[in-house]
């Protein structure tokens, strides 16, 4: 009973917050409401501190949706919410299993609960089969007959026809009713999250360590041959990457003037080379250390060469990061250049985890689990940053050359900063006009926001930007 009342009230609140509204304050309020519902209906599970970490991730990223109103914050928040739901089904499962379980819970848990109820013996005994044919006759036949007679009477009597034409159901907002029903369905799904049993069971049974008895057995000749092949291959690859690094460093030390197109080419080519080499590096390492070679007593040279290769790849990352930084200091930040830094960080993490995997004899699942967990943390952390504002701030204050058109095309988050920049500098007339238009449009948008759509900019102290209820 309490469950149904809570769900009904929450569905009405959901409709009040979201029906025909844009994302804003409503999303943050929904996050609080959903978290409260989860706590109430899964109280025991919230005794685990790890659940609070996922709940906090969800709430913080939802707060960022309100403050920055960015797509990244919204995506992070949705992912954090699904992971929170998945964590409630089984806290010990891997992050990707949590995500799948959370997704499944959000879209179909209600149906599964209903199915489980049907299979419950006590209910089955009490419940009688519904006679669909009977109900079809009881509803269908009278409706058809009434319909036919009504059409006949309308043709026969113009007053009756006129009367029927005046019937107006427009006071019923069916869209709102459907929306509320959908909200009820969503909330019903999320309050009792469900795990996908086969996947979760398999995940819980799979540890991180490579076990000698679980790997495919190879003959000693094959192991020796693989070890030799690995050594030859890694010696050559190490020499190759070493040669590449030397030429790259010589090139960088000889750079005198920074040419945009030239540097862009080298940075991006460096990145493409890096992507391919790192992916190959990880695949090759994983291939050689997939099974028996991990336990081969004479694998020390191969391990040393692998570690050396990982180290050289790390240097390659640092060199590329330096090139990117050189580019950024001259031409400022763009999303693509930030993307390069993010990719470099992720690659570095991938290399470190591969090193740990080999050193501690972990399996492939370990790599997936650790890297995805780190990826999730980076995603949540990156949602805490107002990227458009950061790019605009850096480019207008630090960069030697500014591409104002690029800054104008960013989201509304940099509008006030751009306006400030425009008031302090002399700009091209066309650029001034574009900044003015952007500023005016943003102010109009802010003023038009209903209370559900409020964002942080509405609440700023400046009366010019303050929320005005229309």
């Amino acid at each position, binding site marked *: 009973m309490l469950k149904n009342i809570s769900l009904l009230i929450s569905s009405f609140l959901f409709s009040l917050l979201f029906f025909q509204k844009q994302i804003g304050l409503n999303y943050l309020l929904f996050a609080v409401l959903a978290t409260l519902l989860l706590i109430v209906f899964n109280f025991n599970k919230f005794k685990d501190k790890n659940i609070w970490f996922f709940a906090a991730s969800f709430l913080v990223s939802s707060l960022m949706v309100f403050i920055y109103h960015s797509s990244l914050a919204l995506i992070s928040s949705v992912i954090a919410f699904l992971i929170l739901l998945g964590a409630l089904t089984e806290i010990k499962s891997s992050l990707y299993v949590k995500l*799948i379980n959370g997704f499944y819970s959000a879209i*179909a848990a209600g149906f599964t609960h*209903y199915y489980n109820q049907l299979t419950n013996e006590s209910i089955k005994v009490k419940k009688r089969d519904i006679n669909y044919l009977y109900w*079809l006759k009881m509803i269908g036949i009278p409706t058809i007959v009434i319909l036919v007679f009504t059409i006949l009477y309308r043709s026969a009597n113009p007053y009756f026809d006129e009367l029927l034409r005046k019937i107006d159901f427009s006071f019923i907002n069916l869209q709102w009713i459907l929306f509320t029903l959908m909200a009820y369905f969503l909330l019903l799904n999320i309050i009792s999250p469900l795990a996908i049993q086969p996947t979760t069971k398999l995940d819980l049974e799979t540890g991180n360590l490579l076990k000698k008895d679980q790997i495919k057995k190879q003959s000693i000749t094959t192991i020796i041959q693989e070890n030799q092949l690995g050594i030859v291959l890694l010696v050559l690859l190490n020499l190759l990457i070493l040669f590449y690094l030397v030429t790259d460093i010589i090139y960088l030390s000889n750079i005198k003037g920074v040419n945009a197109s030239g540097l862009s080419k080298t940075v991006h080519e460096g990145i493409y080379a890096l992507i391919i080499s790192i992916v190959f590096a990880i695949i090759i390492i994983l291939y050689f250390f997939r099974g028996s070679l991990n336990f081969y007593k004479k694998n020390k040279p191969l391990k040393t060469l692998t570690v050396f290769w990982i180290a050289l790849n790390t240097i390659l990352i640092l060199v590329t990061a330096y090139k990117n930084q050189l580019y950024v200091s001259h031409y400022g930040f763009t999303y693509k250049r930030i993307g390069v830094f993010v990719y470099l960080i992720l690659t570095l993490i991938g290399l470190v985890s591969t090193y740990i995997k080999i050193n501690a004899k972990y399996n492939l699942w370990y790599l997936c689990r650790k890297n995805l967990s780190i990826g999730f943390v980076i995603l949540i952390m990156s949602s805490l940053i107002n990227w458009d504002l950061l790019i605009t701030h850096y480019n207008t204050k630090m960069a030697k050359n500014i591409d104002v058109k690029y800054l104008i095309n960013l989201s509304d988050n940099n509008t006030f900063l751009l306006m400030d920049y425009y008031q302090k500098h002399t700009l091209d007339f066309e650029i001034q006009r574009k900044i003015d238009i952007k500023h005016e449009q943003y102010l109009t948008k802010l003023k038009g926001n209903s209370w559900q759509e409020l964002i942080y900019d509405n609440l700023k102290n400046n009366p010019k930007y303050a929320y005005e209820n229309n």
Partner: protein
Amino acid sequence: MLMKIIKTSAKAALLSSALLTIAVIGIVNPINFYFILIPFVSIIITFIISVLMIVVTIVPFDILKNKSFTNKAIFNTYFPFYAISFFTICSLLIINFNLDEFYIMVFSIAYLTAMPTWIWFFKPSKKIENEK
């Protein structure tokens, strides 16, 4: 099996027609008297679609059934993946049609009908399940 398919399709057609009628009345304004005809026309179309959908996407799972792999086991093993795949395909199609209101309505109804259809199709028969 044929009766089971027809019976489940009839239920699915009833549900989807009801949802379609409510959705159309909700979207189209003002409501015309002839809107009463919608369920009767749509039920024929949705019945045909339901039969096809059940035969193509649900019946293959029923073939896996044997003495140890009951309806319940099939449901618990495959329904989650079916639901995830169906939802993802419907969402992608909605995005593909530029979030058009009509397609949102159609694919939402398809999803909301497909899920109970699984339940009806794999509802454990009392006799067999009680024996278990």
